């Protein structure tokens, strides 16, 4: 399955990410997470590579989890301090579901990041999507690792100025992350502007069509996999809407 056609992988990503957006029940999210993890491994991403990717996003994921746990006030109170409920079952469930959703999206990103960009572009063009749009999409995806590297560099630089992150109180840490994210986003915007200039200077979009030497073809195994994924998608989403 490692050499599966990019269109099959895109279908799998579509199913996973749609499920991540649609499913709200924790057990469904858990099922989707296992499905995503299985697919990620079958598509050739190693556990180590996935772990590295997860580690980079761990601080952000933990902040999201904490925000849900602290601010979602639904379900039964689990922890009550001086008569004031601070932790609700709904908050914990919502936090856990969001964390799983995050994981599913990371798995999808890991699979697509492993795929050759030109193969994906050719596959998208064969699906009838305009080359311009496909190219923009691929460039946007390429910004994710760059974004993560910039953020982890900022964290390292901050610590090397004598800041021990573990000793900073939680509330302050969130404000700190907000301060760190701003220059990282600004950096990404600057990079994208520079990229646009470079691409235009190289004549990108000067002609309406583009010839590609590379071709991607669906094999019999790819068609079988597509049928399985389609059926699985239809069944699960249908079942979720009817009985979930």
């Amino acid at each position, binding site marked *: 399955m490692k050499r599966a056609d990019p269109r099959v992988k895109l279908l799998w990503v579509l199913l996973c990410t749609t499920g991540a957006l649609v499913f709200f029940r924790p057990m469904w999210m858990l099922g989707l997470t296992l499905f995503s993890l299985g697919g990620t491994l079958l598509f050739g991403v190693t556990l180590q590579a996935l772990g590295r990717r997860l580690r980079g996003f761990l601080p952000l994921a933990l902040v999201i989890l904490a925000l849900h746990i602290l601010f979602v006030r639904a379900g039964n109170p689990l922890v009550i301090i001086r008569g004031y409920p601070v932790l609700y079952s709904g908050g914990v469930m919502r936090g856990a579901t969001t964390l799983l959703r995050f994981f599913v999206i990371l798995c999808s990103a890991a699979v697509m990041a492993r795929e050759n960009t030109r193969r994906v572009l050719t596959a998208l063009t064969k699906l009838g999507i305009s080359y311009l749009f496909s190219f923009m999409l691929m460039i946007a995806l390429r910004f994710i690792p760059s974004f993560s590297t910039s953020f982890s560099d900022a964290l*390292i*630089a901050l*610590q*090397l100025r004598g800041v021990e992150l573990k000793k*900073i109180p939680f509330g302050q840490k969130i404000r700190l992350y907000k301060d760190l994210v701003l*220059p990282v986003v600004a950096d990404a915007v600057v990079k994208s502007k520079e990229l646009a200039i470079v691409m235009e200077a190289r004549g990108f979009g000067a002609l309406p069509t583009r010839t590609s030497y590379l071709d991607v073809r669906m094999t019999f195994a790819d068609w079988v996999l597509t049928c399985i994924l389609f059926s699985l998608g239809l069944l699960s989403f249908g079942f979720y809407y009817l009985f979930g």
Partner: protein
Amino acid sequence: MPAISLSNLVFCYAKGDFVLSCPSLDFPHGELRLIMGANGSGKTTLSKLMCGILKPLQGDVRIFGKPSSALSLGQIGSDVGYLFQNPARQLFAGTVWREMVFVDELLGRDLEASAQRAQDLLERFGLGVLKERSIYNLSGGEKQRLALCTLLMGGAQFLILDEPTVGLDRRNREILYTIIDDLLEEGRGLAVITHEKELISRYSNARKIKVERGQVLV
């Protein structure tokens, strides 16, 4: 006791495509060491091992006598400063002044003393008039000097500068050399990664460490 001491290091990236090995090597206080080598030879990897950003597979890194594996990056940062090749990556606050007092504000230190120190450093590094300027509107040389100031604000006694002359014009290079001279005069230790002939010839008395295809040659 040397500021940084490396002994028989072996490091390999997770992908396994690059291995760096380094025999025993000391970086003393108050001295300058030049780390030289071609692009991709492992200079930056060595410098990241020296300040604990990367952890070795084998061997030992000691920072002011303590093993780096037992220290957090925050603890290391109090003694060792690292100037990134792209200093913009280590600036976060909106203005030059906020950048200087960012960490002290965050850690709730004495702001009056911090402001005085920040003012002194900015004046010394020629950034006094730029206090209110946004960090996004600084030139490359100014960003670099500001990043150096922030490292000194943290009290770093040993500084690692990763290719500090890249992208600097002659005037800014001269300013940098003056800063290096001043830091050495103050007794701080420095490790400068470079392949710039001008810098190497200017500090021809400094001990040179060569890195070639992942091998550190002392």
